[in-house]
């Protein structure tokens, strides 16, 4: 009985001590105290979060990689305009129309595309994107009153617009959201490193670098194979559910690029390849049965390497798509 009573007293004491703990201490601190490592006060927080959103005018051909508000006003008829959006690999793009003043009946249009499309070639390709091509275009003139917000499926998106009447235009806000498992990515920079993870998903993911690069794969884990289950060399990677392939080409669409190498065995270490194409893509094909991961880094081939390796001509390998 005495021990039970003591246990209860101890519990009460612990409970009281918790109520008098540090959390309450921090809440009671005021802004007037001289403390260099003070957590931001309420006023300070308001000042930080209430900073004015970045705002600038949108150009007819533009590329945006920052959050903010962008306004396009036609000073003259602008018939062929587009703006690209790009974020970090782990980000998704969200576009919200704030104000639109275009004459849809008069031939103006404003369309958002989920991805990038250049010379008719799309990224991600039709094979790798969850939506059919028709659903990747969101036409404001058709669905503007219903859908004024758009979120991309990857770190890139773009809009196409045409405005005939000077003075007409539109305004939108770009925000970026986190993407836990980036799948299709276009790199903003010719140098970087990335780890692509496909956790039990039946999907294909591409990482595109629109520069001639040397790419070094440091770690590849494909869940279906280990060192004891070597496939017959004659079969190669064809028919294997999970593998990584390197593609090179002169267009944006990975499905129209030529495969340079394929890897279907896990390894740790480094495998390096120089690819002198305008666009280099590392693509992981995943069956969904395993957790697949590939880590790699890349940097741009410098001009010396491009010009002085005559025996490896870039033009001979990367030909224009037909």
């Amino acid at each position: 009985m005495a021990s039970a009573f003591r246990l209860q007293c101890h519990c009460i004491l612990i409970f009281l001590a918790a109520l008098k703990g540090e959390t309450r201490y921090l809440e009671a601190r005021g802004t007037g105290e001289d403390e260099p490592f003070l957590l931001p006060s309420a006023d300070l927080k308001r000042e930080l979060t209430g900073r004015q959103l970045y705002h600038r005018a949108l150009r007819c051909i533009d590329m945006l990689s920052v959050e903010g508000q962008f306004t396009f006003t036609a000073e003259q008829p602008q018939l062929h305009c587009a703006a690209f959006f790009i974020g970090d690999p782990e980000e998704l793009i969200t576009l919200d129309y704030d104000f639109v003043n275009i004459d849809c009946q008069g031939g103006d249009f404003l369309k958002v595309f989920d991805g990038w499309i250049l010379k008719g070639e799309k990224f991600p390709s039709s094979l790798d994107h969850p939506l059919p091509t028709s659903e990747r275009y969101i036409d404001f003139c058709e669905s503007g009153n219903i859908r004024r917000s758009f979120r991309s499926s990857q770190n890139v998106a773009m809009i196409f617009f045409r405005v005939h009447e000077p003075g007409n235009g539109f305004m939108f806000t770009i925000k970026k959201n986190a993407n836990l498992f980036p799948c299709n990515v276009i790199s903003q920079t010719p140098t970087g490193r990335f780890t692509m993870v496909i956790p039990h998903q039946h999907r294909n993911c591409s990482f595109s670098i629109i520069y001639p690069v040397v790419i070094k794969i440091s770690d590849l884990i494909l869940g279906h194979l280990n060192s004891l289950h070597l496939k017959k060399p004659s079969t190669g990677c064809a028919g294997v559910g999970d593998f990584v392939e390197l593609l090179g080409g002169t267009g944006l669409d990975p499905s129209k690029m030529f495969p340079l190498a394929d890897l279907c065995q896990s390894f740790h270490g480094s495998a390096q390849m120089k690819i002198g194409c305008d666009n280099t893509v590392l693509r992981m094909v995943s069956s969904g049965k395993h957790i697949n991961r590939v880590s790699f880094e890349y940097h741009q081939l410098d001009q010396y390497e491009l010009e002085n390796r005559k025996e490896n001509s870039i033009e001979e390998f990367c030909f224009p798509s037909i």
Partner: protein
Amino acid sequence: MKLQLLVSTGILLVALLPCHDCRALSKSPAAAASAPLPPDFLQPPPSLPVLLRMGEEYFLRLGNLNKIPAASFFASSSSSSSSRLPPGALASNFFRAAVQQLQQLPERSLESAAGPGEGEAESLPREVMEREKRSEEPPISLDLTFHLLREVLEMARAEQLAQQAHSNRKLMEIIGK
């Protein structure tokens, strides 16, 4: 007469004699159509190294393949005798396989991608109307070169860095108050 006979005989001989360079042409279209498989680097001829190895690097090249043995892997995987093809044939096979690969892709016209219902069966009059409508629609793809794309990308990157620097400066000013 004799000259004509000789000329026609020569033409027949050239046409009918087996041509090693053109071996890939004798492949059935179906086999060629199924060609666009990645080069099978795990099935190297015994005398040639695997293209991709740990710690080694290779330039990928097409053209004069005699100089770079590893580049001979750069052939259609459907051709079992690719390793024995001369370099010119390898290049032509590569080009042919790539063209076939491109031709096999479903043709998606820019105009058809603008609206819904792509690929659906349509009646002829409606199809004609839609085609006319699409032909009037503006292009929905930009013909920008990679060079220009990189230029605007670098401009966007510079803008992002400037914006980040501005935000950092503001933050320091606020914290310093």
